[in-house]
C-alpha cells in the first residue's frame, strides 16, 4: 500500500508529540522510524493505525484519506511493543481472532491459521497460551496474528525491544526475510540504530516530534542533514574548535562552529604507517579498550580528544605512547548550517605520477 502523510501534528496537552511531519512511502517498502525514546515515533505509528487522532494533517492510504476511518477499517496489522497477545486465548485462538471477527468461513480460517503457524515456525505450539511461550515465540505469534487478516500495511512498535540481545539478531533477519517474501509495506519503530540500519530499506529519523531526515541507511550515514542526525547515527565525538586540528585550519573562518568526528574518520599509527605524513599530527594515546574484535583507542590531540578503532592485526599500542593521527574529515555545524569538510592536506600537494 502506498502511504502518504501530510502536515501530521499531534499535541498531548501542551506537549507537541508530533510536529508537522510529511513523508510518503512506496508500496512494498520496509521503513524504520528511528529516534530517541519519547520523540514521537510511536505517536506517528499509532496515528497511522487510527489508535490516535491527529490534531491536524492528512493520512492517505492508496490515494484515499483515512483520517476518519476507525482502526477496524484501515486494513492494517499492528504488532505491539509488548505484543498485547490475548492472554486467555491459545496461539491458534490469537491468530484466528481477526479472521473470526471478519466472519471468514470456518474452513478458510483453519487453512489460514495453519499457513501462518507454518510460516512463523510455531508448529507444535498451537494449543499453548501466551504465558507458556518464550519472548521470541510471543513475538512471532503477534506477527502472525497481525498478518492473518491479510493487511495492506504492517505497523510494528519496537518489535524487538523485549527480547534478549542474542535472539534479537535472529529475529531481525527472520522478519526482514518474511517481509521480503510477503511484499507487504511495513513500518517499524525502534530506538536502536543498528536494528534500523540492518533491517530497513529506508530510515526516518524522528526527534522531538520532527522528521529530521528520511533516506536509505547509507545515505543518512554519509550525508547527515542535521547535527542531530549526525550525532545520532554512528559513534562520534564533538570537537569544540576544529581549527586546531591539522588540515582544518580554515574552519577558523566560521566562528562558533563545532565539529563532529566519527571514529572511522580518524586513522592512527606510527609514522611509517602513513603515506602522507604531512597531513598527520602528533597525538598521545590516552586509553585502550579491547572491544572483542578491535581496539577502541582514545587519543589526545592538542586540546581535543578523539576516538578511533585499530585493528588487532596491527602493532599493539600502549597508553602514553606518542603516535601520528590523521583526521580524514569532519562534520561541521553551527546554529544555521552544517557541512562536511575534508582534510585539506590530504590532497597530495605534489602528486607524483608513475
Amino acid at each position: 500500500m502506498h502511504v502518504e502523510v501530510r502536515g501530521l501534528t499531534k499535541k498531548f496537552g501542551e506537549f507537541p508529540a508530533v510536529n508537522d511531519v510529511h513523508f510518503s512511502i512506496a508500496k512494498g517498502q520496509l521503513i524504520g522510524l528511528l529516534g530517541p525514546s519519547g520523540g514521537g515515533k510511536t505517536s506517528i505509528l499509532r496515528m497511522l493505525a487510527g489508535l490516535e487522532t491527529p490534531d491536524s494533517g492528512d493520512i492517505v492510504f492508496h490515494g484515499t484519506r483515512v483520517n476518519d476511518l476507525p482502526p477496524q477499517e484501515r486494513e492494517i496489522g499492528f504488532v505491539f511493543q509488548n505484543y498485547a497477545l490475548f492472554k486467555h486465548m491459545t496461539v491458534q485462538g490469537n491468530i484466528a481472532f481477526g479472521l473470526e471477527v471478519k466472519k471468514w468461513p470456518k474452513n478458510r480460517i483453519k487453512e489460514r491459521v495453519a499457513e501462518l503457524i507454518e510460516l512463523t515456525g510455531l508448529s507444535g505450539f498451537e494449543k499453548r497460551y501466551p504465558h507458556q511461550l518464550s519472548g521470541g515465540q510471543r513475538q512471532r505469534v503477534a506477527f502472525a496474528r497481525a498478518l492473518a487478516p491479510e493487511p495492506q500495511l504492517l505497523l510494528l512498535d519496537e518489535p524487538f525491544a523485549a527480547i534478549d540481545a542474542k535472539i534479537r539478531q535472529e529475529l531481525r533477519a527472520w522478519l526482514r526475510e518474511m517481509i521480503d517474501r510477503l511484499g507487504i509495506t511495513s513500518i517499524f519503530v525502534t530506538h536502536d540504530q543498528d536494528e534500523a540500519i540492518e533491517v530497513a530499506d529506508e530510515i526516518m529519523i524522528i526527534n522531538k516530534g520532527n522528521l529530521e531526515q528520511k533516506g536509505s541507511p547509507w545515505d543518512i550515514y554519509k550525508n547527515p542533514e542535521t547535527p542531530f542526525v549526525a550525532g545520532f547515527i554512528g559513534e562520534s565525538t564533538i570537537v569544540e574548535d576544529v581549527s586546531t586540528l591539522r588540515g582544518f585550519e580554515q574552519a577558523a573562518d566560521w566562528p562558533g562552529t563545532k565539529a563532529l568526528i566519527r571514529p572511522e574518520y580518524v586513522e592512527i599509527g606510527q609514522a611509517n604507517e602513513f603515506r602522507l605524513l604531512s597531513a598527520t599530527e602528533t597525538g598521545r594515546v590516552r586509553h585502550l579498550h579491547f572491544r572483542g574484535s578491535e581496539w577502541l583507542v582514545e587519543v589526545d590531540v592538542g586540546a581535543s580528544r578523539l576516538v578511533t578503532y585499530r585493528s588487532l592485526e596491527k602493532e599493539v599500542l600502549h597508553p602514553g605512547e606518542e603516535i601520528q593521527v590523521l583526521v580524514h574529515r569532519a562534520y561541521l555545524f553551527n546554529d544555521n548550517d552544517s557541512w562536511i569538510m575534508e582534510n585539506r592536506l590530504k590532497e597530495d600537494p605534489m602528486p607524483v605520477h608513475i
Partner: protein
Amino acid sequence: MRRLWIGLTCVVFALLLGAPVVRIAIGAWSEGWEGFRHGLTRPEALHALGMTALIVVVVTVVNTAFGVLFSLYLVRAAWLRERMKRLLNSIVDLPFAVSPVIGGLMIVLLLGPETALGAMLERGGIQIAYALPGMILATLFVTFPLVIREVMPVLQEIGSQQEEAASTLGAYGWTTFWRVTWPSIRWSVVYGVVLTVARALGEFGAVLVVSGNIMFKTQTATTLVYQDVENFNLASANAVALVLAAGSVGLLLLMEWAKSRREG
C-alpha cells in the same frame, strides 16, 4: 515473641469474630428445632425474606451492569477529560461516606409523598418512599461503588493494548468487550457482585428509613430482625439472623473463591 503475637491475634479473632457467630448459632437453637422452624416459617418472616431476595436480585443486576459500564468509561473513555474522570472517580466513593440512615433520608426527602416529585408520581399510581421502589433505590445507592471499586483497578492494570490490538484486527466495541476485556475482568466482576449481594442482603439503615418497616409490605429480613429484637422476641430474631449469617458466611467463601480465581 512470635508465639505471643500469633496467640494474641488468634484470641482477638476468636473473641471478636468467632464468639458472636457461635453465640447466634446457639441462640437460634435455644428453643429447639421447633423454635427455629417457627421463627423462620412465620408468614412475616417468609414475606420479609422474599422481599430481601427480590431487592438483592434487582440491585445486583442493575448495579453490576451500570458498574461495569461506568468503570469502562472512567478508565477508557476518550470523550471524558482527565480532570472530569478524576472528579467522577472521587464522587463514586460518596456512598461509602454517607451513613445509611442519611442515604434513606435523602430518598424520603426527594421522593417522599410530601415532595412535589413524590406527589406527582403518587398521582400516577407510583409510590416510591415507603414502598419497594424506594427500598431498591436506597440499596442501589449504598451498593453503587462496590463493583466499580473492584473492576476499575483491573482495567487500569491490564491496560488498553489488548483492546487496541483487537480493534486493529477489525473487532468493534461489543466484540472487543466480550472476547477480550471480559475474560480479564470477569473474576473481579464476580467479586464485586458477591460484595454487592452481601451488602444488599444486609442493608439495614437505609432500608429501615425508606421502608417505614411495614409488616407484610415493606419489611425485609434485617428490619424484621430489628423489630423482633425491639419486641424482645429474641428466639425468632435469632432464627432469621442465623439464616442471614449463614448466607454471609457462604458469601464469604464465595469471596475467597473469587479472589483466588482472580489471582490465579
